[in-house]
């Protein structure tokens, strides 16, 4: 049996990859994907702990996360689409309407 | 019949109703608003006639649970607030009538705000619950903000922001002090209460009183306004539409003085004793400074605004003289300043509607063209100058005598107001109304219309009445004033139960003067 540490290491690697992806990529779609990767890293960690603790709680939370992520993907992609229509770009540098 | 709630919320109900009327019906709004204000005035007259001057207890009380924890809907009036309520209900119809033709833009919204303002002002005067007081105090700013900001002159946004921020700043400090009082009372008694008369029973430690008094005093001093917090006033007055100026000068400024009388003095008597010398100096500076500034203003409205600073200085000085004559004089002078300054602003409004300028140099010789107007203008000037036989004299002489009784030096400095007021007002009158007609535009000025005469006539009648029969009004406040002075000056006698909390020395068992002392006073007055 593979020890839970291995899963956790994978989870961390995925999470860090997500962070790095978020910061070094410039277009919203990739950043969005990076966020999804981070979410899945968290999911992996949840499942790992749930399995080792023998409880279903973590798995339930994962279902929630997946559902929310699906909803988020739908809305997020729609927003990105609208942003593209308005600004003809999905590069984050181009979108700084909130600048004070 | 819940008269007080009726007069407070009738205008508000009207304002709500207005929302559903289509905005094209301009005259409907005017007539309806005027009617509402008149009905309110007539109802408020019953207060005057049914008021029992023999007691200092609040009358026409209404009490209902509201939010809980001591936050109640509790209204009532005594001799101090009665006359100010009447002043308010008297002036609002006049203010509405005066803006009949001047306001052509957004007539609906204008009248909605005026009516909300009336409800707010009346609410402050009738509130006996500190929370309610604060709510009305702040709520009143909103309509005023829009009245100046929408229907005002060129720099209206600057003026209205300054007015609202300044006043609100003071109000917030007061809110903190109210919370402090609230918690102290709870600590001392275990009961939640924000009842003004209940809180007055608290005897706080002098050093605590000092800070709380400063918080209250700042809020009220800004509203009065006392020197050096006066600079919002000329701006607000100059920019406000005529009716706004009238209400601002005649009623809103009185709220500050009323706050001192109703809250600051009876709540913090020790602090008052400590700060009176400083406040008196500020008042005296205000009297002379306001008058000197008025002397050199080039804008008529600004001149009248500075004259308000000077007059309110006298009123506040009389308040701080803390004797019967001074306090009665102060309240009387508040009423009469409301009339005379209100009338002055109405006069300026009449001129402005014709010439669209407020600068003194653009006028000259108007009397010749408008003799009827000239008579009313002169009457307003003379009333403001304090000519005997008119309202101004009674208030002024009582104020000055009260001040004189408290401190002769204050009176000698304060009495300069009667010289300087004559100076700036008559000089202004001379430049605007007398001399040859310098501006050809003036030759086409029509004299007052019937509507405009109707605006001035009630004020003129009341000016004479107040000057010749002041007893009508003075009698109503005798008992309340004596009670107030008892609270401020002779209060050590009744406190019981020393509490071990930090802030409080004790609780008064009975804040009303005992039966013996009351009968004593009646004998004295005979």
């Amino acid at each position, binding site marked *: 049996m593979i020890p839970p540490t291995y899963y956790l290491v994978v989870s961390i690697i995925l999470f860090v990859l997500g*962070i790095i992806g*978020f*910061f070094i990529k410039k277009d919203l779609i990739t*950043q969005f994907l990076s966020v999804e990767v981070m979410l899945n890293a968290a999911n992996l960690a949840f499942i790992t702990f749930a399995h080792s603790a023998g409880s279903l709680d973590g798995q339930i939370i994962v279902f929630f996360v997946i559902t929310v992520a699906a909803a988020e993907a739908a809305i997020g992609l729609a927003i990105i689409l609208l942003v593209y229509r308005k600004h003809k770009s999905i590069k*984050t*540098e181009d979108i*700084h*309407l*909130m*600048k*004070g | 019949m819940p008269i007080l709630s009726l007069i407070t919320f009738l205008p508000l109900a009207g304002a709500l109703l207005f929302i559903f009327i289509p905005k094209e019906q301009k005259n409907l709004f005017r007539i309806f608003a005027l009617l509402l204000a008149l009905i309110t005035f007539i109802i408020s007259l019953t207060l005057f006639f049914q008021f029992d001057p023999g007691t200092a207890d609040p009358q026409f009380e209404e009490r209902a649970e509201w939010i809980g924890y001591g936050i109640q809907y509790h209204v009532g009036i005594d001799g101090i607030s009665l006359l100010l309520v009447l002043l308010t209900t008297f002036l609002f119809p006049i203010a509405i009538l005066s803006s009949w033709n001047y306001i052509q833009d957004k007539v609906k919204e204008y009248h909605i705000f005026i009516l909300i303002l009336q409800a707010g002002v009346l609410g402050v005067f009738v509130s006996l619950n500190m929370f309610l007081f604060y709510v009305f105090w702040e709520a009143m700013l909103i309509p005023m903000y829009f009245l100046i900001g929408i229907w005002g002159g060129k720099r209206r946004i600057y003026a209205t922001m300054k007015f609202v*921020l*300044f006043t609100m700043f003071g109000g917030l400090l007061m809110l903190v002090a109210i919370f402090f009082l609230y918690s102290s009372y709870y600590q001392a008694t275990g009961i939640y209460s924000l009842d003004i008369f209940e809180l007055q029973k608290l005897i706080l430690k002098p050093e605590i009183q000092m800070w709380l008094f400063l918080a209250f005093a700042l809020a009220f001093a800004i509203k009065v306004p006392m020197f*050096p917090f*006066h*600079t*919002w006033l000329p701006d607000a007055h100059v920019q406000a539409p005529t009716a706004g100026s009238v209400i601002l000068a005649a009623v809103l400024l009185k709220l500050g003085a009323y706050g001192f009388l109703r809250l600051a003095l009876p709540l913090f008597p020790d602090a008052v004793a400590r700060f009176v010398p400083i406040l008196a100096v500020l008042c005296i500076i205000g009297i002379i*400074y306001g008058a*000197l*500034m008025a*002397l*050199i203003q080039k804008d008529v409205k600004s001149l009248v605004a500075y004259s308000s600073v000077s007059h309110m200085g006298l009123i506040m000085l009389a308040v701080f003289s803390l*004797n*019967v*004559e001074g306090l*009665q004089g102060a309240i009387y002078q508040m009423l009469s300043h409301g009339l005379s300054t209100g009338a002055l602003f109405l006069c300026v409004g009449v001129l402005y509607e014709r010439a669209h300028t407020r600068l003194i140099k653009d006028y000259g010789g108007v*009397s*010749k063209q408008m*003799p009827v107007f000239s008579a009313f203008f002169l009457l307003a000037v*003379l009333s403001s100058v304090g*000519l*005997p036989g008119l309202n101004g*004299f*009674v208030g002024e*002489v*009582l104020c*000055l*005598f009260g001040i*004189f*009784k408290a401190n002769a030096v204050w*009176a000698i400095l304060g*009495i*300069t107001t*009667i*010289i300087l007021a*004559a*100076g700036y007002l*008559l*000089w202004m009158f*001379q430049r605007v*109304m*007398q*001399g*040859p*007609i310098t501006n050809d535009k003036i030759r086409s000025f029509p004299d007052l219309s019937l509507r405009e005469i109707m605006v001035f006539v009630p004020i003129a009648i009341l000016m004479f009445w107040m000057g010749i*029969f*002041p*007893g009508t009004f*003075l009698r109503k406040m*005798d008992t309340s004033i004596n009670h107030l002075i008892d609270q401020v000056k002779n209060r050590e006698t009744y406190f019981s139960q020393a509490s071990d909390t930090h802030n409080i020395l004790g609780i008064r068992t009975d804040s009303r003067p005992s039966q013996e002392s009351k009968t004593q006073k009646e004998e004295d007055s005979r």
Partner: protein
Amino acid sequence: MAELFWLIPFFPALSSLLLILFGRKLPRKYIAFQACLAVFFSLALSILSFLSLLGSGHEGHGLIKNLFAWIHSGSFKVDLSLQFDQLTAVMCLVVSGVGFLIHVYSSGYMAEDKSFARFFAYMNLFTFSMLLLVMASNLVLMFVGWEGVGLCSYLLIGFWFEKPSAADAGKKAFIVNRIGDAGFMLGIFFILLHIGSAEFAAVNHAVEAGGFAQGLATLIALLLFVGAIGKSAQIPLYVWLPDAMEGPTPVSALIHAATMVTAGVYMVARMNLLYSLSPVAMQVVAIVGALTAVYAASMALTQNDIKRVLAYSTISQLGYMFIGLGVGAYSAAVFHLYTHAFFKSLLFLGAGSVMHALSGELDLRKMGGLRKYLPLTFPTFLIATIAIAGVPFFSGFFSKDAILTSAFANGQYLIWALGLMGAVLTAFYMFRVVFLTFYGKERLEPEAKAHLHESPKTMTIPLVILAFFSIVAGYVGLPIVLGKNVNLFDRFLEPVIHAPHGAHLSLSSEWMLILASVAVALFGIFIAYVFYLKKPDIPHNLVARFPWLYKLLYNKYYMDEIYNATFVNSTIKGSELVYKHFDLKVIDGALNGSAKTMNTIGKLLSSLQTGLIKDYALVFLLGALILLGYFVF
């Protein structure tokens, strides 16, 4: 009837109210009739009340009518109550009598004016206020009348307000008077605070009971006197009266000669017991009076405006009255007030008649030789001039002599000397006016000459009546040399003039004083005769010899300029500086400054808000790491 005495002031009040409300629609004839009738009612009722007072015998103590409680607040208790005692009777008769004649005169004089109703409304209002002033039974109500006459004076001086000078003069009068009023008010406060009442009876009672320490009495007396200085145009507050001549001439006659300006004298006489307590205050009154008498007379010497000469003469005569008060001869002062009312209003009305004849000309240099054209104005004017100059057997002689004699008798020799000096000047400048106006060469403008005419009857009849009184009015107060009890006036006033009489002189010294007075009067007339009829080049030579003196007098010692520079302009300039540099910059600056500071801080902080998602995420990451670190370590 006499119990209704309190109605005296209310006839003119009612008439004034009606005229103000409906005057514009009423016919002129009716307006004049109503106004005169109202004053006539007051006069008639005054006479009736006076007769009943006389009938009530020597010890009669006047009537008091308390109408209602006016201002009652704490210890400030003032009633609206009127009284009618001997002093009031004299004043009421003067005010309503002279007032009535002047009203009649005005109906002719003002006939052409377009604001006819307004004029009579103000005149009636004035009569009401003045009657209120003299009938008030307490100081506060007196102050009401005091301010009321000030208001009417303001309104009537500025009656022709289109003229900037008239509007200016009205305003000046009101403000200068207000300075006096402030002092007066403080005096009232001291009395109220000290004895708890402002009733004259209560004050007198307190004085008699020793309720006033001398220092307090001095303070109060001086403060009240400040009010009198303002109202009666004494040094240093006299500057408004000459300018007040901008008003219509009947106004000058009624307000600025016969009645209002004497209010100060009346007030001091009314408070005589209090003043007698304080020798210091009395001395001040006498000195101010004497200085004013000479000073004002000296300014009258060179004026070319006929009304201004009369105005300075009024100031000077008021100075005499104050001399009388200051030396304790209260009834002599009131006596002079009473005679002065007749001859001075006659002088003004005469001057008005001259103006009327000359289409408004006021300049003495453009008159001359008018006596044949004005057969009624000339003799009446001459009678008044003789009366004011102090020629024996005319009213002014008796009253002025009574004052000077008292001054001498009380050992105030310097004051007496100043009074005599003033008398020479008075006789001189008054006869200068007569000679320049009615005698000598005609120097008329051709246009004025064309319209030259004697005034209508409504104007000349009052002149004749006043001339009659200018002669006979003095015979009620004959000097003591003619017998012990011949001074009916003194005896009549005795119940109200409680103050003890000063020292008496021997008969021979009284005669000496009278002779001295007569001599100086005749001397003054003689010089005027020499200067202006016999050798008209003397004045020119004198002017050439002493140009500085002439200039100084002609420009009224530059007092107006000095006052303007020191008080008026410095106040305005100073206020402007304060407004610009303090109000706008410091106070408002601090306010706007704090608002700006807040704004700047906000702007600084808002630059953190880049609008870039990455920056926010970075901060978020950092925050998360810090939290993580916090929990782990």
